[in-house]
C-alpha cells in the first residue's frame, strides 16, 4: 500500500518561494477541508469549504481573507508538534507577503517588499530631505524661520497653497493609479468579472465587514491576539488607527471644501471643523498605531511571520509620525519652528503616500477585494457534498 506523507514537503523555513508556498498551502488546505472544525471562526473556512481543489488564485484569495487572529491555530489538533505540522495562520501570512509583492505595480517596484522596513525608512528619510530642501527653495530662508500670526497666513506664507496642491495632487494621482492597477490584476486572478466587484449587496456587505472588522472577533469572543487569551485589543487599536486615518482624511476634505467653495483660507481656528476632525483623528492615529505595535511585540512567536515585522512596523511608525508631526504643527503654528515643522510634516505625509502601494497599506486593498469576493460567493450555490 502506498503511504502518503501528510507532513510538509518543502523546507518549513521562512524562505519559501511562491510555488513552494502554494504547494504547502495545497497540503494544508486539503487537511483543513477534511476537518472543518474551525468553520465558525471566520470567513476563511466557509470559503475554503466551497472548494475541492486549490489553485494559486484560491490561495491568494483565502490568504487575504485571513486576519491572522490565531484562533484556528490554538484550536488545531494538527498544529505542531503533530506530524502534520499545521500552522495555517502563519502560512497564510507568508502567502500575503507574496500577494503584495506579486501584484505591486509597476512590477519593478515590487522589490521594495523584499526588505520593506528598510525601504520605508529610506523613502521616509528621502522624503523628509526633499521636503526640507523644497521648502527652503520655495520659501527663502528669511521667510522659513519666522513666526507668523494666523492672520498672516501661517503655512501658506512658507509654502503657497497652489504649490502644495500641485505636489500632493500629483503624488496622490500616482498612488491611486498604482493601487488601482494592483487591484485590477488581483481581481482578475481571482477569476471574477470586473463588474461583479460593483454588485451593490456583496460590496455593501464587504464594506460593512471592513468598517466593523467583523472577522477580527475570533468567532465572537475576540481574537487570540497577542496570545491565547481572547481579546478585542487588536480590533480596537485597528479601529482607532483606521477611523483616526479617516478623520484626518475628512479634515483634509473639509479643508478643501472650505478653501474652494467657501473661500475660507487655512489656517482655521481650533474650533473649526477641519481642525477638530484632524485633532480627534490625529489622537486616534497616535494611540492606534502605538497599540498595534505594542501588541505586535507581545505576539506569540508561533503565529508571527517575523520577516514581515519591518513592513508592519514601518507602516505603523509612519502613521504615528504623520499624526505626531501634524499635531505638533497645529500646536506650534504661530511659532518660529513652524516653517521647519511644516516641511517635516509634509515630508512624512509624502513618505506615507509614496509607500502606500509598496507597504503594509496594500493589505486594505486585497482584504477588501477578498471580502467582496466572499460575499459574491455566498450568494452562489454551494457545491453539494453528502452529509456525514
Amino acid at each position, binding site marked *: 500500500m502506498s503511504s*502518503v506523507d501528510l507532513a510538509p514537503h518543502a523546507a518549513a523555513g521562512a524562505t519559501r518561494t511562491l510555488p513552494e508556498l502554494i504547494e504547502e498551502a495545497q497540503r494544508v488546505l486539503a487537511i483543513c477541508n477534511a476537518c472543518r472544525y474551525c468553520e465558525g471562526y471566520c470567513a476563511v473556512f466557509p470559503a475554503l469549504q466551497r472548494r475541492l481543489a486549490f489553485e494559486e488564485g484560491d490561495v491568494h484569495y483565502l490568504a487575504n481573507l485571513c486576519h491572522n487572529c490565531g484562533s484556528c491555530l490554538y484550536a488545531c489538533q494538527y498544529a505542531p508538534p503533530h506530524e502534520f505540522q499545521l500552522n495555517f495562520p502563519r502560512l497564510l501570512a507568508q502567502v500575503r507577503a507574496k500577494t503584495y509583492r506579486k501584484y505591486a505595480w509597476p512590477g519593478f517596484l515590487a522589490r521594495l517588499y523584499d526588505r520593506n522596513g528598510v525601504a520605508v525608512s529610506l523613502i521616509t528619510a528621502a522624503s523628509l530631505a526633499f521636503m526640507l530642501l523644497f521648502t527652503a527653495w520655495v520659501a527663502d530662508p528669511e521667510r522659513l524661520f519666522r513666526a507668523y500670526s494666523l492672520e498672516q497666513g501661517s503655512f501658506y506664507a512658507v509654502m503657497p497653497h497652489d504649490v502644495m496642491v500641485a505636489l500632493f495632487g500629483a503624488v496622490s494621482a500616482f498612488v491611486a493609479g498604482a493601487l488601482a492597477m494592483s487591484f485590477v490584476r488581483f481581481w482578475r486572478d481571482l477569476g471574477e468579472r470586473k463588474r461583479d466587484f460593483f454588485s451593490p449587496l456583496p460590496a455593501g456587505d464587504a464594506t460593512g465587514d471592513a468598517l466593523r472588522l467583523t472577522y477580527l472577533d475570533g468567532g465572537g469572543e475576540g481574537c487570540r491576539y497577542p496570545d491565547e487569551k481572547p481579546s478585542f485589543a487588536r480590533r480596537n487599536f485597528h479601529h482607532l488607527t483606521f477611523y483616526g486615518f479617516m478623520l484626518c482624511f475628512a479634515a483634509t476634505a473639509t479643508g478643501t471644501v472650505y478653501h474652494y467653495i467657501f473661500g475660507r483660507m487655512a489656517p482655521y481656528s481650533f474650533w473649526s471643523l477641519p481642525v477638530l476632525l484632524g485633532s480627534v483623528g490625529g489622537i486616534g492615529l497616535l494611540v492606534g498605531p502605538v497599540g498595534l505595535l505594542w501588541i505586535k511585540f507581545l505576539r506569540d512567536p508561533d503565529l508571527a511571520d517575523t520577516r514581515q515585522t519591518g513592513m508592519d512596523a514601518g507602516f505603523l511608525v509612519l502613521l504615528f509620525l504623520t499624526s505626531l508631526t501634524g499635531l505638533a504643527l497645529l500646536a506650534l503654528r504661530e511659532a518660529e519652528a513652524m516653517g521647519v515643522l511644516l516641511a517635516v510634516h509634509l515630508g512624512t505625509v509624502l513618505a506615507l503616500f509614496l509607500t502606500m502601494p509598496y507597504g503594509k497599506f496594500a493589505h486594505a486593498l486585497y482584504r477588501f477585494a477578498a471580502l467582496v469576493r466572499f460575499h459574491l460567493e455566498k450568494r452562489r450555490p454551494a457545491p453539494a457534498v453528502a452529509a*456525514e
Partner: protein
Amino acid sequence: MDPSRLYDVLVLGGGNAALCAAITARSAGASVLMLECAPVPYRGGNSRHTRNTRTMHAGPLGVLTDAYPEEEYWMDLLKVTGGQTNEHLARMTIRQTQDHVGWMASHGVRFQPPLSGTLHLSRTNAFFLGGGKALVNAYYAAAERLGVEIAYEAEVVDLDFADGRFNAATVEHRGTTVEIRAKAVVVASGGFESNLEWLREVWGPAADNFLIRGTPYNKGRVLKLLLAKGAKQVGDPTQGHCVAIDARAPKFDGGIVTRVDAVSLGIVVNRHGQRFYDEGEDFWPKRYAIWGRLIAQQPEQIGYVIIDVKSMGKFMPPVFPPEKAGSIGELAGKIGLDPAALEQTVARFNKAVRPGHFDHTIFDYCRTEGITPPKTHWARTIDTPPFFAYALRPGLTFTYLGVGTDAKARMIMQDDKPAANVFAAGEIMAGNILGKGYLAGIGMAIGTTFGRIAGGEAARHVLG
C-alpha cells in the same frame, strides 16, 4: 505536584471528564491535583479530537434547534447498543445533558451552529466553536483560574488501592518517581485503545492492522491496575468506537481528517475483490459506527471502496488522494487486487442495479436485486471512468472495556459494593452505558455528566 501534601481530590487523566471533575471538585472547595500523562500540546486525551456533544433539550437551546426529548435520545441509544446499556445510568446521563451547554459555556466553552456536512446534527448535537481542542483549552484555562494544580507528563504506574480504598498513586514524572497521596481519587484516564500489546491480546494479530484515530496516550494503565485490584469489569474488550478510515492514515492521532465517507456511493470489496456488506444500509451515523468493525473482520483487515466519476465531489473531501484508473482492471492492479475478481464483482453488481431516481439525501429506491449481500439504497452502476479507489482500515477511536460505576460515579468492586473513595468518569466507565455501537457526541455527554458527578461526589466525600 507535591509528594508531601495530602490532596483532597486527585484526578487521573486530562481529558473532558477529568477536567469536568477537577473543575467541579475545586469549585466545591476541595484542593485538586490533576495528572495528565501527555505533554501540553497533546493534553486532553481524545477530547482533543471531538467536535460536539449530544444534548437533550425540550425546545430550541442556544445553537440547538427544535427539541430532542429524553425518550428519543434513549431510543437512539437503545438502537445502537442493541440493549447493551444500563437504562438507569443512561437515562440519568441523558437528563443531565440538558444542563451541559450552559455549564460548559460558563467555563469558557463556545458553541457554533453546525455548517456544512453536519447540518442533520443541528437538533441533537451542540458543536464546539473550534472543536474539541478549543474546548480542552478553555477548560484548562478555567481549571487554572480556579486553582486546580495540573501536572503534565505525569503517568500513574501504580496505585496503593486495597479493600476498596485508595491511598496513593505512584507517578512517573519527567524521569522521577513520586508517590502522591489524596483523600479521594477520580479516575478519568480513558480506555486502552493506544496500547498495542493489549489490543493484540484481545484481537490477536489482526490488531497490528488497526489504526488508532485518537490520542497515543490512552494506554489503559490505570484501567488495568484497577481491574487487577478488584474493580468490577464492564464491557467487552473487543468493543469500541471503530470507524473505517483511510489506510494511509498515521498509526496514531490522525483524527477526523482520515475519514473516507464514500462507502454509500459505491461498493466496498475485501482483499479478494469480494463485497461483504450492504453499503447502502443506512446513513452516516450508522455507517460510521459499523464499518470499522466490518473491515476489522475481513482478511488482513483491509477494504477498498470503489466509485466512479459520478460520485466524485459528492462526499466530504478526504485528505488523501484516491487511486485513479481508466478501467476497473487497471484500478485493481493499482490497489493490488486480482483484476479479474474485481471486474467480475463490479459487473455482477452493475447487472443487479435496478433503475431508480438517485437521491443521496433520503432512503431512495436505488437498490440491487439478486446479489448477496444486496445494496439496499443509493445503488448506481459503476461504469463511468475514471474509476477511483480508497483503501480502508479499522480506525479505533476508543474502547468500551471499563470499570463499573453507580449513579454517584462511585467505582463498583467485584463484590458489587462501591469503593470508598474512588470515582470514575469518561471512557474508563463509558462501557456501562455504551456496550456497543456508537452515537455521535455520546462520549462527551457521558464524560461531562460523570465528570461533574465524580468531581462533586469526591469533594463531598472529602469535605463532608
